[in-house]
């Protein structure tokens, strides 16, 4: 029987005026966004803009300093460890570095969530894992060790592992990084197809404008500690906002800073080097 949340029309993931950070440093302020069922949302922004921090907030790995993160209609700040585990069973995550288990082969990596959370027989597990590997073009790599596959292949294995349980929400952290053009196109279509077929919500953190704009329903542009722009891909393309235009067209000059800003910690370090004399 589907859970109440899975039949509701409420957003699967919602952030209301959320602030996030580490230690004394606040990375993002006043972030609000929503992701609904069947929707593909692309999260874009420069390196170090806080996209992965947003993903960590969505998975409950990072607690919000302010605002409310709601996942499957539950406020993450109000959940205990057991409730958080139950929520996490309904989501899949593709990590930036893949995070494959190096002591397991490709097949066992993809089978891992099934073995932990589903009581399937060996034949059904075999069939389901091979089918999922087939969808990322790696059926015949099932027997290989993780150390024997390339970086791009490892990312596709991680993708297969993230979606094997057919989750209601899938978070992809840089799914297109390190992929050749063919794998990139197939992966983008796979993400779109999964959302359409399963009705799952997808959040794609990426730098790849062409592929993400081709599959996304909504695009959020993150920069300078906040969401600078959001809307449908066509809306952003048509935007005259200099920030959006510079990011999408890759111009070197404009409001998007290329240089890392000077901080008191840097000035102090530089002074200790004697470089100011």
């Amino acid at each position, binding site marked *: 029987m589907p859970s109440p949340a899975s039949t509701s029309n409420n957003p699967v993931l919602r952030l209301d005026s959320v602030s996030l950070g580490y230690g004394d440093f606040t990375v993002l302020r006043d972030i609000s966004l929503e992701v609904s069922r069947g929707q593909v949302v692309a999260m874009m922004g420069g390196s170090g803009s806080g996209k992965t921090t947003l993903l960590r907030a969505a998975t409950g790995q990072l607690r919000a300093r302010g605002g409310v993160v709601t996942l499957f209609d539950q406020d993450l700040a109000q959940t205990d460890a057991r409730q958080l585990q139950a929520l*996490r069973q309904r989501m899949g995550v593709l*990590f930036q570095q893949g995070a494959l288990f*190096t002591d397991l082969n490709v097949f066992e990596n993809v089978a891992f*969530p099934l073995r932990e959370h589903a009581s399937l027989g060996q034949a059904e597990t075999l069939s389901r894992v091979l089918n999922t590997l087939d969808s990322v073009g790696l059926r015949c790599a099932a027997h290989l060790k993780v150390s024997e596959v390339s970086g791009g292949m490892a990312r596709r294995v991680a993708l297969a592992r993230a979606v094997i349980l057919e989750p209601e929400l899938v978070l992809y952290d840089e799914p297109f990084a390190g992929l050749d053009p063919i794998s990139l196109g197939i992966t983008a279509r796979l993400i779109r197809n999964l959302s359409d077929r399963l009705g799952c919500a997808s959040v794609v953190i990426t730098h790849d404008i062409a592929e993400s704009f081709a599959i996304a329903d909504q695009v959020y542009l993150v920069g300078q500690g906040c969401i600078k722009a959001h809307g449908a891909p066509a809306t952003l393309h048509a935007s005259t906002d200099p920030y959006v235009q510079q990011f999408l067209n890759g111009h070197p000059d404009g409001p998007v800073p290329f240089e890392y800003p000077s901080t008191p910690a840097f000035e102090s370090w530089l002074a200790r080097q004697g470089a100011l004399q």
Partner: protein
Amino acid sequence: MTSPKGIAALGAAVRKRVIGLGVFTRFFIRLLAASSIVFKRPRLVSQQIHFIGNHSLLIIAVSGLFVGFVLGLQGYYTLNRYGSEEALGLLVALSLTRELGPVVTALLFAGRAGTSLTAEIGLMRAGEQLAAMEVMAVDPARRVLAPRFWGGVIAMPVLAAVFSMVGILGGWIVGVLLIGIDTGAFWSQMQSGVDVWKDVMNGVIKSIVFGVAVTLIALFEGWQARPTPEGVARATTRTVVAGSLAVLGLDFLLTALMFSN
């Protein structure tokens, strides 16, 4: 007179140690609480016994043999002064079952299996594998730490028994085959002088305690390691140092408790 800065530094150091002890205790409790997986999925533990135990077998057996050789030689030189060389078998067996078997095995275990466990857990953290498990709603303490802990605790007394058996064989080779002590005297003195409960079982208890200590330290250091190559290297070194000191300290305490009249 002690300066206020000195008192503050002392206070900070004591506070740091107490916090460290608290973190270690919480880690141990979390590990025990996650141990139900041992009964639900015993295959995970048997894999670790194989990985930890079987891969340490060669170094343990070879070390045991050489320790047995040395015990045979040194024992003979000493006993020969008093005309008691027939007691060589007893001396070798008591030395190995009571002390050298559990202690040397634990020291080798810290160097071989302990470092391997620390590096594995540390690299899993550095590679986000533990974070990935948490996000997949899988408790890494239950899935990763508990099977390794119980695998180490079970493997340790078995390895210590192998060490002692091979050591006795080494003592027999030197004493009987090379020096020429009567083989009947060698075995009969051992048989009459070694008490199963007082000597052998106390040795087994020691090796279990050492197994708990070394495996726990190895897992804790890996769990706490900074997720960098340097952090993992430092954690591995700490495992050997802390594990070895813990074994020697615990051995003194256990010996005082077990063998006092």
